[in-house]
């Protein structure tokens, strides 16, 4: 089985977000970048499927050279090789175009990624890649098994879940509990250094959106504390003061 896993480089989940240049640029100072947490689930499941069926796992990232540390970590977790498309990931359509171009060369059975990136939360790339390749896309997938070339999955729907199946190839947006996150072991870290990491230039340059500026949410006015022994007065305040009941 040939699996392509698409991984974004995003600020660590504990990052305090701020902006510079008159709120037109994200402030990267002091920020630790990680593989998208949802992408991490996708990678972990890909590695498990490879252990079960054999084959290869290729990681793809659209990003500049500074994402290579993150890519090496994906290799340490168990991917066999990697492709970095050397470009700033400008928007979802642009990123999807790059992934689709690489995917066309590789004839992958499965293209896995997170349901969304945790920076822009767009959740679009899987669908656009599916459309560009003319194959189904399914999101958010929480369980994935392969039986006789058919993917059996369940996905989240509003207030519940749905079981679905489809023949390969497929593009899937993944989320927990599709797999447990894997932590690279020492052997993985050592071998990752020499695994192939190919750098390619962008295949196309369609950008459909651009960010003009950023804003931070207004801070909440200070918290009104209610003594525990008068807890029931909260309900009246929610009704008469906050007017939410």
């Amino acid at each position: 089985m040939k699996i392509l896993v698409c991984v974004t480089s995003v600020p660590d989940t504990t990052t305090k977000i701020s902006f510079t240049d008159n709120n037109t640029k994200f402030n990267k100072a002091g920020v630790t970048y990680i593989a998208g947490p949802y992408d991490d689930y996708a990678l972990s499941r890909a590695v498990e499927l490879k252990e079960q069926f054999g084959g290869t796992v290729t990681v793809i990232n659209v990003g500049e050279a500074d994402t290579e540390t993150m890519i090496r970590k994906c290799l340490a977790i168990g991917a066999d090789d990697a492709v970095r498309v050397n470009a700033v990931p400008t928007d979802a359509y642009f990123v999807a175009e790059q992934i689709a171009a690489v995917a066309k060369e590789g004839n992958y059975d499965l293209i896995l990624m997170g349901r969304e990136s945790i920076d822009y939360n767009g959740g679009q790339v899987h669908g656009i890649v599916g459309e560009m390749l003319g194959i189904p896309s399914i999101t958010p997938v929480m369980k994935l098994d392969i039986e006789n070339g058919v993917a059996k999955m369940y996905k989240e729907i509003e207030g519940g879940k749905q079981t679905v199946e489809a023949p390969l190839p497929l593009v899937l947006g993944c989320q927990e509990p599709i797999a447990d996150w894997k932590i690279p072991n020492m052997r993985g870290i050592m071998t990752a250094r020499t695994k192939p990491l190919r750098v390619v230039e962008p295949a196309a340059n369609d950008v459909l959106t651009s960010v003009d500026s950023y804003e931070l949410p207004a801070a909440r006015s200070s918290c009104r504390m209610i003594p525990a022994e008068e807890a029931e007065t909260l309900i009246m305040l929610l009704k008469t003061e906050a007017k939410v009941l």
Partner: protein
Amino acid sequence: MSVLIFAEVADGAIRKSSQEALYYGAKVAEMMGTTATALAIGSANTDALAAAGRFGVTKVLHAADGALNEANSMAYASVIAAAAAHEGAKVIVTAKSTLSDGVMARLSGKMKAALGANVTDLPDLSNGFRVMSSIFTGKAFAVTELKADVKIIAIKKNAIVPVETAALATVEAFAPALNDADFSVKITGQTKASGAISLPEADLVVSAGRGFKGPENWGIVEDLANALGAATACSKPVSDLDWRPHHEHVGQTGVKVSPNLYIACGISGAIQHLAGVNSSKVIVVINKDPEAPFFKAADYGIVGDVFEILPKLTAAVKAL
């Protein structure tokens, strides 16, 4: 040139979450000097669809083919693209949801459309077409220009407060040719929590964390939620421990909510949890630790034992 709104159907009528999208779409149409058309897919009651007029939509296209009763993102994207062509629509509006995520991603690829996700306000049309989006899981906003000819706007809950009128929309059958290739994904089963209020759509949410010590103690959480008519939610550790189902997990890698009221009980308020809830209108935090970081993000706080406080709150709600 009308604005097209994808109206999700549940139990034969337009979902509550999509009513906001109808009103938003009608407002955008008004700004653009045109009319708004809704598209409902799957079997639905004609009178219930006509009620879309209350939110400013003049026409509802109804794609009632039985093959579309099960939500299928590829087929739905094709039907929406056909409806957009039928109406000459260049702006497509939807409520962001688990269903619309997959459908709109597909549609964006199909129509080469610029998609603004998690949009929190009406667009700015003064010079181009700009939307305000919630990004970094609610930790910031971005003003984004949608530069393609076709634009998709997926609004976040509470992006706009609908004002209803008594108007009714005309309902037209819409039967585009369906493509077999769109049905290669087979839906083999479905389970829905019956009777419970859907968390992403809920106006009121009662959420509980590890402070409850075990799943056997959730009764008092449910009592308060039932008294309020609220949905229940939980923190990530709670769903990781299987005390509660994953679809109740609120936070950065779980459900993102923006209810009118979020009551967090026994949750300390890790930044990843706050990311999923910080667009709630009013936040109440109940925690025995006065240093819990969640108090800094709250509007009302009570320092105390959740096992004593929750029953008091439930009694007070019942006495309202």
